[in-house]
């Protein structure tokens, strides 16, 4: 069965002025895959995320989501097509409570759009799902706390919660465990594993334990180019990767 990849990047390029940040990235991410993108600092991993999710315009190339070209679409249009992303620097709604943050992430997907004729309290499915996600990210004791009083770990959990709440087909997580303690990281990995079940996951991550524990496919980005894209075992044994990146941190 030949399936359309969930996400397909074709000759992606991004220049900032004369500086080439992304220098021709081709990548196919199959449906249901847990795909990690690794690479040294400054390799362009976050930029790649921004290009795919429509946060910044690309210079050249194509992005296809389930076979549909989404190049140049505004980010809300891309989100409506089932791609949801998190941010490396926490990016939530600071003056809304935890539960309201999660509701915001659910309303469009449940078809309420810009409605001002529905009462939020009467949206049973939205509210049930929001409570459900809140339990999953273990913030049920902080239900009505404003996001701007949450601790760092709680914010990271909320960030993931907002990203996965609407059950997107493609989940993109930008360093989900950055700055977490060991036990928090373990919790986060468990959570990511659970919520990405049956979905496509793309993540940027520096913690190699997380990468090799979660991913079933790894791409290595160095200076804006993918130098290897393979299964974890093959990446581990890849000489170029070891030289460029792993050798220093993960030998």
């Amino acid at each position, binding site marked *: 069965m030949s399936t359309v990849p969930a996400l397909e990047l074709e000759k992606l390029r991004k220049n900032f002025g004369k500086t080439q940040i992304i220098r021709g990235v081709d990548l196919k991410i199959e449906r249901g895959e847990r795909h990690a993108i690794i690479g040294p600092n400054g390799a362009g991993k976050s930029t790649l995320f921004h290009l795919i999710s429509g946060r910044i315009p690309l210079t050249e190339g194509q992005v296809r989501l389930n076979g549909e070209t989404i190049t140049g679409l*505004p*980010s809300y249009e891309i989100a*409506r097509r089932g791609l949801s992303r998190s941010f490396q620097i926490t*990016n939530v709604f600071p003056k809304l*409570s935890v539960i309201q943050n999660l509701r915001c*992430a659910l309303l469009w997907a449940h078809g309420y759009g810009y409605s*001002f004729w529905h*009462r939020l309290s009467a949206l049973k499915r939205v509210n049930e799902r929001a409570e459900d996600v809140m339990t999953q990210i273990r913030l049920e004791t902080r239900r009505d706390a404003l996001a701007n*009083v949450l601790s760092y770990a709680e914010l990271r959990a909320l960030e993931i919660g907002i990203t996965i709440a609407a059950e997107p087909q493609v989940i993109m997580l930008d360093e989900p465990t950055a700055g977490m303690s060991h036990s928090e990281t373990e919790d986060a990995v468990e959570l990511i594993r659970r919520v990405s079940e049956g979905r496509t996951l793309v993540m940027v991550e520096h913690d190699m334990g997380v990468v090799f524990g979660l991913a079933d496919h790894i791409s290595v980005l160095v200076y804006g180019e993918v130098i290897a894209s393979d299964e974890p075992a093959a990446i581990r044994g890849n000489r170029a990767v070891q030289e460029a990146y792993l050798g220093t941190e993960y030998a």
Partner: protein
Amino acid sequence: MDQNQRFRSLFVWGGGALLLMALPLVFSQNTHLSVLSRMGIAVVFALSYNMLFGQGGMLSFGHAAFSGLGAYLTIHALVLMNKGTLAFPVTLLPLVGGLAGMLFSVPFGYVATKRSGTPFAMITLGIGELVAAAVLMLPGFFGGEAGITGNRVTGVTWLGIDYGSQLQMYYLVAGWAFASTAAMYAFTRTPLGLLSNAVRDNSERAEFVAYNPKQVRFLVMVIAGFFAGVSGALATLTYEIVNAESVGLQSSGNVLLMAFIGGIGQFFGPILGAILLTLLQSVLSLFTPAWLLYIGLLFLAMMLFAPGGLSSIIVAHGPAWRAGLMLRLVPSYLAAVAAGAVLLAGTVSLVEMCYFLSDTGRPASLSLAGIVVDPRRPGPWITGGAVLLAGFVLVHFAAGMVSAQWQRLRKDLNARGPLRRDARLAQAVPPVAEVQGTTT
């Protein structure tokens, strides 16, 4: 919604409706009723403004354009009704004003909401200027400087209610103000209402949960335009005249003051601000020509010491109230009120003496709270200055008492552990920024 909340909301809204109905029993004079009507109009206007600013994060300097244009279309409808060319009930004229406000906010809102933050504010300033200029440039439609007058006793009447009396007019304003307030409150609890908060907080993230922030801002502006138009129509019916003042920047600035003084962080904040400011404008102006200066001072003091407005002061007391510890604050608050009164007395005496001397057509003597003083001699100035100075010193000490009391209170509240419903107030802050600069 549990039983308790249901009861509370019934209490608040039912109580509010009863209060509106009962007010004329106490304030039965026409002048009082007219002040009450002005308050109702201001409440609708300020709430519609806060829909933009407090809830949607859009600082507008041109909101009077929408209330004013709503007012102009209402007076034209009223004039047509006076001529007999249009048969329409006066009771429903605010709907005409609302639709007009909405209609104008479509093109203006489309332009303004393309931007947010400071550019948005500048565009609205431009729109305000544009409309104010257009009103004077097109006297055929807007009646020039003199404006347009009409008679509200006209059109289709129901049950003999013709709005000939000030009392009937008050009830018309009260009814529309109540309905508008309820509708605007309901709006805050809808998907678009929540999303307008989200766009205010973080418009970028809103895009990644599938919302177009411009679309959200635009829709909010159109809905706010409707309620601004309603307030304009109510003003039209109350005064039976509309002139260039109604679209002016003065009015746009005034509504901003109301929202800020009342507090933009809570739904009910602008209601308090509108009531207080209307009261000051109508009552203070009877006693002193310096009333505008006092309002300015009030605004300054609010922004310095309680930037969240009156409503934030009330909300900050929630945890203490629920824990039953309010009584502890009372002594220090009484001290603060007394100290504030001394400071106020000093300020007022100096300001009034200045005004007295600068007034060319001044009366023979100046009477301050029944005491006749002569500002041409140094004595009163020295006394006034001394009182002012004493006021500053007393306020300084009183503020110290208040902040010490709050610190103890916070400690005790934290020791009890935050109640779930208080979670968002877990870091209870004193309502007044600490004067001595010991802010934590």
